[in-house]
């Protein structure tokens, strides 16, 4: 029984203009990134590389020509999906870390459909494969959503475990039922050529999955801002007791965001299978679900932020690799930068879990 409550704010109407708030948002995005590059520079200097020259090279490898831009966007493509899939849950205070598993299973389903559906189906194979991927991955995350909503099973634990199950399951399937007969290794057959997503800037691997990813981000923006369900999900994320007291069905909202998250992650897996890898193999996801989580946290769940964050991490991945062709800077430097951004992003996450603590 708190006998004296202090009230924050004292009748002073806030005069912070919208512009200032936007600047603050941008700063919150840019600060971790800048700090990460600073840490990277220290490490570079320590190993005897000139940080400025290295960053100039990275910039040129990331964005220096239309081909390099295409390579960056290509690397950013899966992150658009996984970041949206993560953000939609985080926004509702649902700490779903199972996007990677859903992405993998979606990719497996799409690759299997793309290879096994009769080639006579022609152009319709790709959409069918995507639907299969969305269905599989949607159900995959619907289950922990239901467990959370109805039985209060902690979603962090359940989705984390489901990642392992997804990896094990896909590993088993590509080594047994779906193993390519023409291959000595752990992959499915290559999908039919007609099922491949078209390339946007040949010869770059940038494919139309990128546009689908952008469409997902846009749809997320519209959903969050323009639909009652998106508004309700936001209130659930901000304060569950409040949401309940204004008549919002919290279990339904949680299950909905988890299912949507699965669907988006599955679509991402399909895009990656049909557009990029053209099959499913071990190492299909280079931890896209987790990088997507960093993007979502960095972007504070905003749609625009997700696009920037995905491009940033895409550039780090593509440039971080190809600078090795022209310098002695090891891949580790990229890991340092990504890791530092992650740490800052995780500080946001700490706030999220604080809120979870309070809500319960």
């Amino acid at each position: 029984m708190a006998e004296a409550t202090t009230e924050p704010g004292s009748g002073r109407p806030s005069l912070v203009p919208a512009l200032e708030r936007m600047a603050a948002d941008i700063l919150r995005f840019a600060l971790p990134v800048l700090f990460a590059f600073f840490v990277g520079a220290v490490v570079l200097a320590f190993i005897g590389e000139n940080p400025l020259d290295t960053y100039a090279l990275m910039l040129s490898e990331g964005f220096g020509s239309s081909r390099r831009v295409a390579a960056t966007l290509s690397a950013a493509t899966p992150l658009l999906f996984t970041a949206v899939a993560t953000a939609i849950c985080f926004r509702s205070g649902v700490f779903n870390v199972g996007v990677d598993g859903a992405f993998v299973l979606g990719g497996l389903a799409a690759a299997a459909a793309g290879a096994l559906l009769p080639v006579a189906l022609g152009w319709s194979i790709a959409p069918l494969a995507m639907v299969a991927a969305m269905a599989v991955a949607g159900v995959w995350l619907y289950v922990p959503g239901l467990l959370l909503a109805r039985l209060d099973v902690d979603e962090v634990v359940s989705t984390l475990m489901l990642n392992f199950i997804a990896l094990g399951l896909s590993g088993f399937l590509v080594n047994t039922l779906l193993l390519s007969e023409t291959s000595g290794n752990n992959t499915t057959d290559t999908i039919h050529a007609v099922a491949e997503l078209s390339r946007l800037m040949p010869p770059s691997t940038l494919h139309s999955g990128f546009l689908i990813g952008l469409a997902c981000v846009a749809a997320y923006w519209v959903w969050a801002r323009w639909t009652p369900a998106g508004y309700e999900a936001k209130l659930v994320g901000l304060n569950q007791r409040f949401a309940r007291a204004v008549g919002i069905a919290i279990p339904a909202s949680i299950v909905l965001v988890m299912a949507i998250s699965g669907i988006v992650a599955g679509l991402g897996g399909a895009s990656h299978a049909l557009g990029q890898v053209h099959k499913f193999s071990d190492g299909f996801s280079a931890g896209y679900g987790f990088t997507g989580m960093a993007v979502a946290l960095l972007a504070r769940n905003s749609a625009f932020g997700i696009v920037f964050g995905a491009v940033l991490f895409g550039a780090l991945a593509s440039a971080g690799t190809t600078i090795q062709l022209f310098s002695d800077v090891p891949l580790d430097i990229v890991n340092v930068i990504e890791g530092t951004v992650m740490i800052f992003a995780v500080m946001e996450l700490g706030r999220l879990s604080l809120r979870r603590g309070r809500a319960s």
Partner: protein
Amino acid sequence: MEKGNLMKNLTKLLAVSTVLGAVAAPQAAAADVAPAALIIAQGGLGDGSWNDTAYAGFKAGLEKTGVEGRPIESKDVVAQGEEIMRRAADGGFGLVVSLEWIHGEPMQKIAPDYPDTNFVIMNQTREGDNLASVVFAEHQGSYLAGALAAQVTTDTSIEGINADPVIGVIGGVKSPGIDKFIVGYIQGAKAVNPDIDVKVAYAESFGDPAKGEQLAKAMFAEGADIVYQVAGGTGIGIIEAAKAEGRYAIGVDTDQDSMAPGHVLTSMVKRVDVAVEKILEDYAGGAFPGGQVLTFGLKENGVALSDMEHTKDRIPAAYLAKVEELKAGIVDGSVEVWDVTEKGYPDFYN
């Protein structure tokens, strides 16, 4: 036109690199030879195995030929393969060797776009005038491992060996690529002792040492005293089990004898370093074997048993002589070892 631009870019970038002091002083011999790139497979450098061995050969080859070259690592090596290879070719690299299995298909696809660049893929056969495929006759090396194990397994004078003619092999997963090893091993064992019992198990994983240890211990309990591991990281557990139970394991891919000295009978070494070095030499000498499938077998020294540093003294010389005799037979063609990836499964296995 685009290409010209890129060349200009490259010059610029190389200039930057030089400023960084990153580029080793090129040797005279290679002044007119474009640089080489080695794309590191999943697992990365420091895996103590496939990637590290190949990189050792790469470095040796660079040193020998004076060609300039770099290893390329990527966190997302599966999906980025095509972009990396294109970037290397665009960037003026004359030789692109990929250690990543999954790169075979995109490599075959992009090779025609870059006639001035030579491509090399491992462990599979791809086509293209400027593309060379490297395969290893692992079945041959495994045959020798089987022949050695079959002799040792009944010699109770050797510490840790029982009289039962039982040996084992554990694969990572059931696939033709792994069964190539297993079938060669069985064939080699049966060549010296037709009555031998070879126990086979699959760990369903290449990264589960606990599972490997468990399977190996089960085999030891069933009377096997030597177990061949064809299971990557899972195999570490198999070697651990051999050490714990006082039995023997046989290593694979790289020389794993020192992982448990005295408990690794031998290792079936895949000399990817030999292959990479050989290719570099051919390339530097203007004789890149474009369009060819290069098989590195016993004859090419592409597969071999390890030097058995820790176990040689315990193994009677006659056994090693028998192994050498079989090896000579394979090299001269009088002994033929079954290759699952080419001929499918033989009658004696599945």
